[in-house]
């Protein structure tokens, strides 16, 4: 006999496992074998009562159906509210009143049944099997058997997913990172060994630190799956150094999210590159030093806004070197970031003298204004007039005026 629980509680598999190791889970339903339970619990009704009682204790609301085969149990649990027990041989009668939609047939078959005026499982079951097979093929036969409450589907059993969490509470509050990392190291050793055993790796570390008052959490995203305990510990260390916990710690919990490990095949013609783990570690160190948003590969943005760029994460995949043609010689500008404010004296609308903390002097030659504006659809609309100015000392600078304020933008090489 098989039981099926249907409901929206995430604890349905847990409830089922309390009664059987043979559990198949699906969305909103679990089916499990109750064979042999009669010796432990009693009659089918008593088994149903026990499952219901335990479910109520666990706060689970679900339909329960017991039948001689899994498909009949699933059909009944999905479509009949409360507890349904179908005695062997009475499957067809019990299910007869259910609508054919309960079978979840393909759209084409559903439409055909609708055209035939077949609305219930009873009506479907009454059709001749040969006639159905001739018209709907194997699908027709399968649906009819389901409608009759017949079925021999086996359970697709999966072991419960492993959790990779380690937790430790300290006897005395820990204030320094070193003892904390010592504890973390042991935890990570244990967790990575478990990952290794299961043929898994991780791409996310979640560190929860229990504080005197409250909790402190750091989530570290890894660019690729890893399971080297030392590399993971270094990531934890750098992360905590960059954002140390605000108070003494009373405990630590580390959770690793399992993912399939990375399979890497190096190319024969690819240049040697540093090990990704080491490169990632280096970048993490740099981020600690320079700041999170100041490390990466610079990318010029697709906009007319001058000096618009952003950092994107560094790509680790090695690639073949591009064909590097000799670039055209170009006038280079060195941007002052941030641009210092300046005072500019104009004559007939053109800059004649520049005053700034960085450079000052009379302007002997200008080109401009070069006008740009954009982002008018946002609240960060901008507009500026740039000038290229040659100072008396022959230095060539770019200055600009935006929102009535002058800035020294950079110098030309």
């Amino acid at each position: 006999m098989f039981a099926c629980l249907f409901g929206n509680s995430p604890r349905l598999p847990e409830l089922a496992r309390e009664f059987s190791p043979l559990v198949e889970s699906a969305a909103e339903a679990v089916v499990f074998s109750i064979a042999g339970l009669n010796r432990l619990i009693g009659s089918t009704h008593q088994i149903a009562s026990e499952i219901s009682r335990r479910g109520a204790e666990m706060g689970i609301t679900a339909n329960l159906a017991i039948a001689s085969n899994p498909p009949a149990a699933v059909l009944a649990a999905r479509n009949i509210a409360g507890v349904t027990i179908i005695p062997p041989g009475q499957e067809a009668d019990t299910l007869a009143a259910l609508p054919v939609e309960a079978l979840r047939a393909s759209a084409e078959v559903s439409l055909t049944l609708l055209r035939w005026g077949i609305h219930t499982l009873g009506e479907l079951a009454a059709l001749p099997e040969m006639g159905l097979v001739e018209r709907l093929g194997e699908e027709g036969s399968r649906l009819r058997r389901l409608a009759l409450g017949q079925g021999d589907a086996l359970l697709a059993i999966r072991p419960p997913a492993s959790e990779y969490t380690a937790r430790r509470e300290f006897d005395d509050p820990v204030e320094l990172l070193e003892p904390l990392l010592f504890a973390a190291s042991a935890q990570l050793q244990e967790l990575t060994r478990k990952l290794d055993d299961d043929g898994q790796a991780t791409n996310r570390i979640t560190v929860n630190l229990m504080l005197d008052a409250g909790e402190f959490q750091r989530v570290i995203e890894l660019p690729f799956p890893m399971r080297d305990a030392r590399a993971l510990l270094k990531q934890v260390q750098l992360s905590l150094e960059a954002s140390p916990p605000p108070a003494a710690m009373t405990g630590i919990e580390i959770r690793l999210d399992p993912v399939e490990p990375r399979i890497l095949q190096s190319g024969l013609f690819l240049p040697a590159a540093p090990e990704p783990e080491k490169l990632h570690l280096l970048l993490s160190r740099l981020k600690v030093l320079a700041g999170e948003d100041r490390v990466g590969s610079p990318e010029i943005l697709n906009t007319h806004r001058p000096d618009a760029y952003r950092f994107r994460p560094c790509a680790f995949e090695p690639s073949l070197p591009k064909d590097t043609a000799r670039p055209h010689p170009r006038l280079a500008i060195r941007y002052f970031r941030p641009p210092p404010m300046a005072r500019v004296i104009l004559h007939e609308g053109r800059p004649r003298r520049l005053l700034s903390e960085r450079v000052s002097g009379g302007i002997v030659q200008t080109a401009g204004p070069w006008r740009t504006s954009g982002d008018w659809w946002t609240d960060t609309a901008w507009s500026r007039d740039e000038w290229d100015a040659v100072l008396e000392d022959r230095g060539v600078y770019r200055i600009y005026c935006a929102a009535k304020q002058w800035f020294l933008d950079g110098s030309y090489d």
Partner: protein
Amino acid sequence: MYAELHARSAFSFLEGASLPEDLIEECARLEIPAMALVDTDNVSGAPRFYKAAKKAGICPHIGAEVTAARGGRRVLLVENRTGYRNLCRLISTMKLRSAKGAAAATDDEFRQFAQGLICIANGSQPMETLVDVHGPGNVYAELQRHLDRTGEVRNQQVAAIATKWKLPLIASNGIRYARASRRELMDVLTCVRNKTTIGEAGRLLERNAERYLKPARAMRRLFADTPEAIAGAMELSGRLQFTLADLGYEFPRYPVGPGETMDSVLRERTMSGALGRYGLHHEKAYRQIERELRLIEKLKLSGYFLIVWDIVEFCRRGGILVQGRGSAANSAVCYSLGITAVDPIKMELLFERFLSEERGEWPDIDLDLPSGGDRERAIQYVYQRYGKLGAAMTANVISYRSRSALRDVGKALDFDEETLNRISKLSSRGGWETENRPEPQFETAGLDVADARVAKLRSLSRQILDLPRHLGQHSGGMVICQGQLDSIVPLEPATMPGRVIVQWDKDDCADLGLIKVDLLGLGMMAVLRDSITLIRDHYREEVDLAQLPANDPAVYTALQKADTVGMFQVESRAQMSSLPRMRPKNFYDIVVQVAIIRPGPIAGNLMHPYLRRREGMERPVCPHPLLEPVLKRTLGVPLFQEQLLRMAMIAADFTGGEAEELRRAMGFKRSQQRMATIETRLRSGMAGKGIHGETQDKIVKAITAFALYGFPESHAASFALIAYASAYLKCHYPAAFLAAMLNNQPMGFYSALTLVKDAQRHGLHFLQVDVERSQWPCSIEERAVRLGFNYVKGFRQRTAETIVIERTQSPFSSIDDLRRRVPSISKDELKTLAGLGALNRTGSEPRHRRDALWQSELALRPVSELLENTAPPQAPSPLKPMNPVERLHADFAGSGLSIGAHPMRFHREQLDCMRVATVAAMKHRPDGCHIRVAGMVICRQQPQTAKGFVFLSLEDETGIVNIILKPDVFARLRATVLSHAYLVVDGVLQNQRGAISVKAHDVRACPAPASAAVPSYDFH
């Protein structure tokens, strides 16, 4: 002084953000004396540009940016008429040989059409080629300054090349919009063109907002280092002598025999036609014909009349129904030539409305043809007669309307699809919201109008309104030319294969004196044609539309009862509600009826005074005894445009041309100054005739009030003829008329289902689709209509034709036999036929629909080659027959209509318990009583003239009733009214002289067969 010689308008289609008129207006404001319009690969904006420039006193140069096959665009300006012709032919040549949107001219084509064109070099094309193709004296080097570094680099290169080749420099600003504020719209258009959003467009957008029209002072300052470039632009402007006034268009000459002239041939054909129309002794007619012929000869229009006559003759020879409409019906010559069917002498129509010496315009003759193949034959005849390059359809400039504006701007501003759908649905169509109040729709759609992005959407959607989006094809306007039309205006292929369009729309063609003939497709003409054929085949009677009995009592009885579903022009809800009051008794009443139920007369409050006088509730009075002959027929109320003209001619001694000028001045685009001048002339004329004081004021008021709304009497008369013919056929040959109506759907005001139900109420029988009997179209069997395969959803005509051929060999012995003999029939087609009962009589024994469905599934099974030609075992079906409601559902699912009982019939018992009255029973209830009615919604309307009132038409098994919802009631019940196919309405009955309607105060969903819903015709 400075001339701007490089300006794109919005006719560059998403590459310019201002209309030509706006560019000219800005030129006038900035005192720029000349401008060149150079749109991309077209001169579509040139007529409007020329017209506006002429008015503003600005010199309008024409040119184009022509896409070059080797890359980039070449800017070409027209120097003289040869240059213009060459530009048109260059664009036509490249467009006609390329796929839409992929046209580009080769170097050889540029060389072939170089004469008379000036090339503006801007560095994008190799200078050597340009000088070689256009000659050194015809190439100018262009400098543009948009305060942009890269542009300046290009300027330096251009200047260096100009020096090397000794080319004169010109300065321009590469205009994309009239004012700087339009830069935002330009960015949005760029996004639309590149199918991207403003956030993603990046460097596709404008770098700054400098491509606007700048005054001479600013341009001089900008080019202070090269003043010769400013002077160069002025010098070049002086060299460009061509304007569109110098088009050289000539209407084709009609070929005549030796010793004949076009005038003599027209006279001879008119007179021989008149003999048939009027007999020998109709002096008044011959006097009028003579007058018209003299004017036609004087205006050299004989060729035009002969060419239209030639098209009409082609249609006659080919058995194509054709009838002229519009103001041509005012002409006795057109009537005699058979172009029109309304006798203008008998109807006392006014010739001056059609043609006048003063107006200096080509007359407008529109021909109505059956829509579909017949109309296409007529169009192809014109192409054949005048050559592919001698005739073309006029373009239809598709411009932004409120919905498309919101959608395109919204997409560019990255609003999500769901929000845009919400706003679009609430946008004005059929008057749901007023055009000038967009705020409510934004708020109703759940948008915060204070939000900056929403504010941009609002303002840019307004700015983009009326900007051209792309060129389409006009429904029927054809331009014909003596010689090569492609040297008058560029031609390009239309989306429809075999069609060529000119780059100007019909108004542009008219403004520039290009004569056009409108070949319009009219669904009802196709219905009349098909009805005549069906009557000939099944009733063995010949119907001649020109010889229909004049005062058929059945027709007038039906009109008076508003029993007009399916009849041309008199079937709408508004027509039906006025017909019982109007009670037409003769043909002229139908003419009035056609003209009076229009937005114009309704908005102008002309309808009710006329109806009141007709019903005897008001005394018919004329503003002045002199006007009595003009207004007598319409009981003193001016209803037609011709009456306006005659009133001015009689009361103020206007000539025909002056009267027409008055009509135009009072038209939709009223100019205060023009109106004041004409009113002065009107008043002085009346004073001269002794009409003073209050009477004078009354006449002026009458003329100005209705001039805006009046409908041409000639046009109404032409339509009334078709209306009468449709009514006659419906009353006397209902099966033929209905079959023809069904075969020409969609058309008219009602769905096929409503037509069928109305016909059933009139006793007409319908027969279900049957593979052993049906044709592709609906046909007639024993005076009943047999539904055709064209009413089987998803059925292919080729399959239907194979079925018809196969069954003439022998009937199908079984469904499997059908499947084997018609192998092209698909699974879905066979199942749909079975579901509709079309296979019930296949084989020796009748079967029910489910039986057929069961068998057809078996017939569709894949079998091996060995068993391919063997019949499967015929076991009885285990399925139950469909009940009537199931049959109704199957009918709707398979054909969109049902010839069984009306869906409401199945709920009548339940509705009786709810005390719901039938439509038939309502006619016997007193006016003003409370009533409850229910039915299927067949139409929802909110006319703009109705001040927010919404009208529904509900149909039950006994008839159709109009429901009126006041604005506040509709606002309260909007969701119910719009979302349910069947409604129960509580309200007050209005039963006035047989016109039945219900003023609703409550509406709710009605229990009805849920899936048996048909789409209602909403918001026409």
